């Protein structure tokens, strides 16, 4: 019954978003039912649809969890976008520096590395780099808020741009193969590649980039749940978010919790880099994020800032991303950008929760758990 109530509101918001999106589709001259059929049908086919849907969902699980952890501490992390860039770059950096990379530059070999570590060392190190760098980047606005009281929303937005600038600078001047017209790093060492699920799931072709980091994402969901609800640290973070003055009364340093929550949040966002660098492109590619950080806000809100909800919401948005490509290909007038529109409407509806309370409250559907 409680589960039903928790699910009811997000479902209503999604349905409402699809209705509004449908009107929009009608206005630009296509049949919404056909478009939605394309969208969902193509995302659920086996193996390509499901494989790509889960692949698209992977970064969204990480960013959704990132936003959710910060939110539980009463913080709005708009900076997952920057944190994931920094995480991905650090991941690639370790995988290049310690991965024994040599590239062919104008016919001559050029070394990029200090060492060539075996996979058993390189894989965990590169993963740690992604998490650590993301955590550090997240901790900065946490620290600024705890120490100076400056608002984390503004600082995370600003740091997004700084992250993009810094990673772009280092890529362009230090880790790009000279002469490469694309702003991307040299390939990382092969020892840093992690397995695609296709290599051991029967029926799933290896060309689908769904990789081990999807399993990491599921583990991250479980760990976040345990961290928030089953450890004293999680208790302190949630207490700070629920009522900071009461938390202080309980001997909790709310300042520490703010920094901690932002660091954990940033670390989770940084894990997007594992999927991107170690499981997909095998290099740092500038501007790779398809607004994962911002979509993470939608994922977290729709998922009620709970790991299970985040997982489900990420799957939904993963489906939309995947299906969007087919809408592009098979609809005359609707492009895959419809997906962005749907996501935005979902966020608006979830944020303006009161909109539904009025009309559904009567049926006891939307009642907050006030008992």
């Amino acid at each position: 019954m409680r589960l039903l109530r928790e699910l009811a509101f997000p479902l209503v918001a999604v349905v409402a978003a699809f209705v509004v999106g449908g009107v929009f589709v009608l206005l630009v001259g296509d049949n919404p039912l056909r478009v939605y059929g394309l969208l969902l049908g193509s995302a659920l086919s086996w193996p390509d649809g499901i494989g790509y849907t889960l692949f698209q969902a992977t970064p969204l699980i990480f960013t959704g969890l990132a936003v959710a952890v910060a939110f539980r501490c009463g913080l709005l992390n708009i900076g997952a976008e920057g944190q994931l860039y920094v995480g991905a770059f650090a991941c690639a950096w370790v995988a290049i520096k310690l991965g024994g990379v040599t590239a062919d530059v104008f016919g001559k070999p050029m070394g990029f590395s200090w060492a060539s570590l075996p996979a058993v060392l390189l894989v965990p190190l590169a993963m740690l780099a992604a998490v650590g760098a993301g955590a550090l980047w997240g901790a900065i606005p946490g620290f600024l808020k705890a120490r100076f009281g400056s608002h984390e929303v503004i600082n995370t937005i600003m740091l997004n741009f700084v992250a993009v600038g810094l990673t772009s600078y280092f890529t362009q001047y230090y880790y790009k193969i000279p002469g490469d017209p694309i702003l991307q790093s040299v390939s990382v060492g092969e020892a840093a590649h992690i397995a695609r699920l296709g290599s051991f799931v029967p029926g799933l072709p290896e060309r689908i980039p769904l990789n081990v980091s999807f399993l990491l994402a599921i583990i991250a969901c479980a760990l976040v749940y345990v961290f928030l609800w089953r450890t004293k640290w999680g208790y302190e973070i949630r207490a700070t978010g629920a009522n900071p003055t009461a938390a202080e009364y309980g001997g909790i340093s709310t300042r520490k919790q703010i920094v901690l929550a932002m660091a954990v949040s940033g670390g989770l966002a940084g894990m997007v880099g594992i999927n991107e660098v170690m499981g997909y492109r095998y290099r740092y590619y500038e501007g790779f994020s398809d607004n994962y950080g911002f979509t993470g806000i939608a994922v977290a809100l729709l998922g009620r800032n709970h790991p299970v909800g985040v997982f489900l919401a990420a799957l939904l948005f993963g489906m939309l991303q995947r299906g969007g490509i087919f809408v592009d290909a098979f609809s005359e007038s609707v492009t895959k950008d419809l997906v962005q529109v749907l996501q935005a409407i979902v966020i608006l509806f979830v944020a303006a929760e009161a909109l539904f309370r009025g009309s559904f409250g009567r049926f006891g559907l939307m009642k907050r758990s006030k008992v």
Partner: protein
Amino acid sequence: MLELREITKRFGDVLANDRVSVRVEPGTIHAIVGENGAGKSTAMRIAYGFYTADSGEILVDGQVRSIQTPHDAIRLGVGMVHQHFMLVETMTVAENIVLGAEPGTAAALDLERAAREIRALSEEFKLSVEPRAMVGELSVGQQQRVELLKALYRQARLLILDEPTAVLTPQEVEEFFQILRRMREQGKTVVIITHKLSEVLAISDDVTVMRDGRVVGQVKTAETNAADLARMMVGRDVLLRVEKPDAKPGDVVLSVRNLSVTVEAGGRGVRDVSFEVRAGEIVGVAGVEGNGQTELIEALAGLVPHERVRGTIELEGRDVTRAGARARRESGVAHIPEDRHRRGLLLDFDLAENSILGDHYRPPAVAARYGVLLDTEGIRRRAEEVIRDFDVRPANPLLPARALSGGNQQKLIIGREFELNPRLLLVSQPTRGVDIGAIEFIHRKLVGMRDAGCAVLLVSAELEEVTALADRLLIIHHGRLVGEVDPKTATHEEIGLLMTGGGKTKDEAEG
């Protein structure tokens, strides 16, 4: 002038006003008295359009009027000065006064004319303020004058004043009453909300007494006296009795020397306070609210940043002045905070989670001394203990704290704090908003704690409560301790005089 008929107003489950009827005659000063939470402010906020009543009607000048917003009230000549001033601190006096009723055209605000008009008004009512001054830089008394001018500028014929004297010194109160009399002479009608009987008798022509959201009587001031009014306000003339044996004070547990606490804004802070609390005694602190009690208790609980605290706080001989809240708890200080929603509870957390707040990092909340994982079983057992020993209802540890009544929330907090087996118990307003049954229960528990050898420091705005519970009574005024009395022998008049700054300071009394 103003009449409320059968006004009823609910906030959630609380019936704030129950068929309230008040009749204010033109050209009079009308007092509305009652204890905290009696519904006085709610009724007047409804008259000013700040709240809308669920039912009932409002008459102005004998006609039924619809007052949905303050704008409506202002148009009908009703003005209100709120207990917490409604002033924009970053704007000037003139800007604040004319806000919403600006002189000049839509394209040009005529602040010169505003300043002229304000000066004329100040002259007329002897309310001197500088129109160009920043409101944030004014004293509280001056800000109050700005509020009055704001209402007068809108040509209010009826002024509603909510607890206007709470922020004033006795001298200022006298001056303020002069102003009110002057207004009455000029034909204005004044409604003054207060809980101080002396003021009612000093200033008003008529009195309406409220209790528990209802009007219990409206009388002419000349035909009543303090005792009658008090009986009406409280609804019982027997004093609260607490059965307790004489205290057997032991060693000094808390020793406070020259403690000063500065505050950021508003409030009074604590100034140079020294006292001791011994094991096995309850020391009460009596005073009008906002005279530094909150800051005193929070400083003792380790909740005030140490750069704002001066002096020393010793606990069983150890200096804990710079220790934080957690360290204080570990050395045996429990704290029942004055505002249970703000400080005491995590309303969205369940009872089990609330029962370990402050104790959540050590057994039984976690399995081992330095454990990280919460011990769900241990937490549940702790919660069940608290619920059983303190009769918290409903007895379901999985309910959110929000679902409990005020009394049960308070019992949960007290139970949690008692689990610490404290050496020192800081108690602030333990029975505020709590039903009679729970009050007695809580009082018994506090005395029980004392008899078990705990040192108890009790702050309460209810004079009856402190005098009934305390073994020694300190009186605080403007952040200073101004006297100590024996609650068994001292009369309420004596204590009341000290509370309002009418007595000598403690040092003078001793020296």
